[in-house]
C-alpha cells in the first residue's frame, strides 16, 4: 500500500522534526543538558522553556492550519480557498491592529488583549462572509470566495489606515501581526491552541466521507445523501473558529493551509480518509521545520516564520498555475 507507506513516513518524519528541532538554534543545546539537567544551566532552560514549547506550538498550529486549508479546498472545490483567502487572516490582523492602537496591552484571563482582538477580528471576518452569503440566499462557492476577497481588501485598507496613523512603536507591533510569528515563552500558548486543533481534526475525521463527496460537487453530494447545507455551515464555522484561535496566538502564518494539503494530495491522492492523517503530520512537520530555519538562518536575528512561509508561498502559487496538467490532479 503506497499511501499507507507515505502516511507512516510522514508520521515518523513529524515525530523526528519535533524531537530534533529544539536542539537546533543560535545557542547550542547539547544532548547532556536534557538527559542530565543541571539546575540553573542556561541550555536546559532554553530547551524546556523556550525551544520545546515553541516547537510544540509550531507543530499544533501547522497541523491546524494545514487541515483547515484541506477542508476549505474540499468545501469550495478550489485550490485557492483557505480560511486565509476567505478573510480570516485580514480579520485577525485588523483585530490585533485595533487592539494595539487602543492600547489593550493588559492580559485578560491570561490572554493578552491583542490576542483577544485578533480572535474577535477573525470571527468578525467569518461572520461577514457567512452573513453575506446567507443574505443573498446563495451559498455557492463563487459568492463565498468573492465575499472573502472583498472582506480581505476592505480590512487590509483599514489596517493600512491604522498603521499610517500610528506611532513608531505601535506600527512595529502591528507589523508583527501582519506576518505571523511563533515567538513566545512557556507552554501556555500551545496548551491554549491544542484543544481547538484536536477538536477540529476530530470533527474532520467524522466527516471524511462527506468531504470526499463535497469535493466532487455539491449537487452530486446532495444526491448521494449528504445534508449539504448543514455540513457546509458546520465545517465553515468550526474550521474558521479553529483557525481563528491559532491566528490569535501566532498571527497569520500564511500559505501553510495552501501548500501542505496540495503537496499531500499529490502524494497520497484525493481520498480524505488518507489525506487527513497525511496533512496533519505533514502540516505539523512543515511549520516546525520552517520555524527552525527561520530562527537560525540569520542567527542571532530571528525571522518571523510568516515571512519565510510567504516567501515560498508565492513561487508555489506560480508552480500551481504553470505545472503540466498531467500532474494536475487538482483543477485550478
Amino acid at each position, binding site marked *: 500500500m503506497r499511501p499507507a507507506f507515505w502516511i507512516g513516513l510522514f508520521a515518523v518524519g513529524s515525530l523526528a522534526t519535533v524531537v530534533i528541532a529544539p536542539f537546533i538554534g543560535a545557542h547550542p543545546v547539547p544532548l547532556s543538558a536534557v538527559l542530565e539537567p543541571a539546575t540553573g544551566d542556561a541550555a536546559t532552560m532554553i530547551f524546556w522553556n523556550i525551544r520545546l514549547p515553541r516547537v510544540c506550538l509550531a507543530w499544533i498550529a501547522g497541523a491546524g492550519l494545514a487541515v483547515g486549508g484541506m477542508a476549505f479546498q474540499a468545501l469550495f*472545490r478550489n485550490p485557492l480557498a483557505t480560511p486565509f483567502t476567505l478573510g480570516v487572516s485580514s480579520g485577525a490582523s485588523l483585530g490585533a491592529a485595533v487592539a494595539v492602537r487602543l492600547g489593550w496591552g493588559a492580559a485578560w484571563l491570561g490572554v493578552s488583549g491583542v490576542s483577544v482582538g485578533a480572535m474577535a477580528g477573525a470571527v468578525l471576518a467569518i461572520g461577514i462572509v457567512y452573513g453575506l452569503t446567507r443574505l443573498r440566499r446563495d451559498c455557492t462557492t463563487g459568492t463565498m470566495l468573492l465575499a472573502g476577497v472583498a472582506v480581505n481588501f476592505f480590512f487590509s485598507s483599514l489596517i493600512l489606515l491604522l498603521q499610517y496613523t500610528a506611532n513608531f512603536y505601535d506600527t512595529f507591533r502591528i507589523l508583527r501581526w501582519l506576518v505571523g510569528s511563533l515567538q513566545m515563552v512557556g507552554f501556555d500558548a500551545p496548551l491554549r491552541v491544542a484543544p481547538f486543533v484536536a477538536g477540529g481534526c476530530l470533527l474532520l*475525521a*467524522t466527516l*471524511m*466521507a*462527506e468531504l*470526499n*463527496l463535497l469535493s*466532487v*460537487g*455539491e*449537487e*452530486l453530494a*446532495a*444526491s*448521494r*445523501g*449528504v*445534508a*449539504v447545507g448543514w455540513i457546509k455551515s458546520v465545517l465553515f464555522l468550526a474550521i474558521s473558529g479553529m483557525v481563528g484561535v491559532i491566528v490569535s496566538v501566532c498571527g497569520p502564518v500564511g500559505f501553510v493551509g495552501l501548500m501542505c494539503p496540495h503537496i499531500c*494530495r499529490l502524494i497520497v*491522492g*484525493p*481520498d480524505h*480518509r488518507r489525506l487527513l492523517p497525511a496533512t496533519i503530520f505533514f502540516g505539523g512537520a512543515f511549520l516546525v521545520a520552517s520555524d527552525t530555519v527561520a530562527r537560525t538562518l540569520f542567527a542571532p536575528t530571528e525571522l518571523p516564520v510568516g515571512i519565510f512561509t510567504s516567501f515560498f508561498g508565492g513561487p508555489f502559487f506560480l508552480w500551481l498555475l504553470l505545472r503540466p496538467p498531467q500532474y494536475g*490532479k*487538482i*483543477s485550478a
Partner: protein
Amino acid sequence: MSEPALEIESLSLAIRGQAILRDVSARFGVGETWSIIGANGAGKSTLLKCLMRIQNGWTGRVRVHGQELACLSQRELARHLAYVPQPGGEQRFPFTVREFVRMARYPWAGPFGAAQPGDSEVIAHALRLAEVEEFAERSLDTLSGGERQKVFFAAALAQGGNVLLLDEPTAFLDYRHQAEVAKIIHALHRERGATIVVVTHDVNAAMLMGGAVLALRDGALVWSGPARALACEQTLGLIFGATFRLLDDPVTGLRLVAPQGAGEYR
C-alpha cells in the same frame, strides 16, 4: 394497489419572483419508465432537482414510496432515489472510477463512512453492469465524456435506490455511447425493476425508450400520455412551439420526428 414510486402533488417553484415550475402533479408507478420532455428552460431539470432536494424552496407535496419527502432525511432519500446529472460539467474529478463508485455507497455507510458488508459485491456488480470494469482503476478526469457518463451510471447503480432520475443522459454523447447508455437503462429496468425518470428534449429518444411521457412548457404540465402518442404534429407543436415532420421507421414501426427546417436552408 401498491404505493407509487413517486407521487408529486402541485409542485411549484419560484426563484426571485419568477415562476419556474407551476403546479406540477404526477404519479410514477413502481417499475415504470417515464420521460419528461420539453423545450430548453421548460423546468424539466429543475423538477428532478426538486425531487432530489438539490433545489429547495418549492411548495407542494412529494411522496416517495408512500413516505412524505419532507419527513425523510437527505440520507434516507438517497437510499430511494439516485440521480445522474447532466453530462459535460466543468468539474474535474481526481478520483479513480472505483473510488468514485464506492463513494456512492454513502447513504448506507456506518459512522466515519465505514464500508458495510456486501459493499464490494454491489460495487463490482455496478461496474460490470455499466461496462466500466476495464477502466475501473483510471482517474475519472482522464476519461472521455461518454466513458464518464457510464461511470456516473455505475455510481447511481451502486447507490442502490430503486428510482433513477436521469438528467439528459445522452446529451453531448456520440451515437455509440448513446446506444450504450440506452442499453444500460434498459438493463436496469429489466434486471432491477427500477423506476426510471428521464429528462430529455429529444422526442425520438423518448419514443424509443417507450413507457410514458410527461411534457412541460414554461414550467407547467401541458401533456401526458404514452410515448407512442407523441407522434402527432399538434401535440409536438403545443409542447415545443415548433413544427415537425414525421417519418416512419421500418425497424421499430414507430413514427419518428425531424424538426421542420432541417435541410430547408441548403
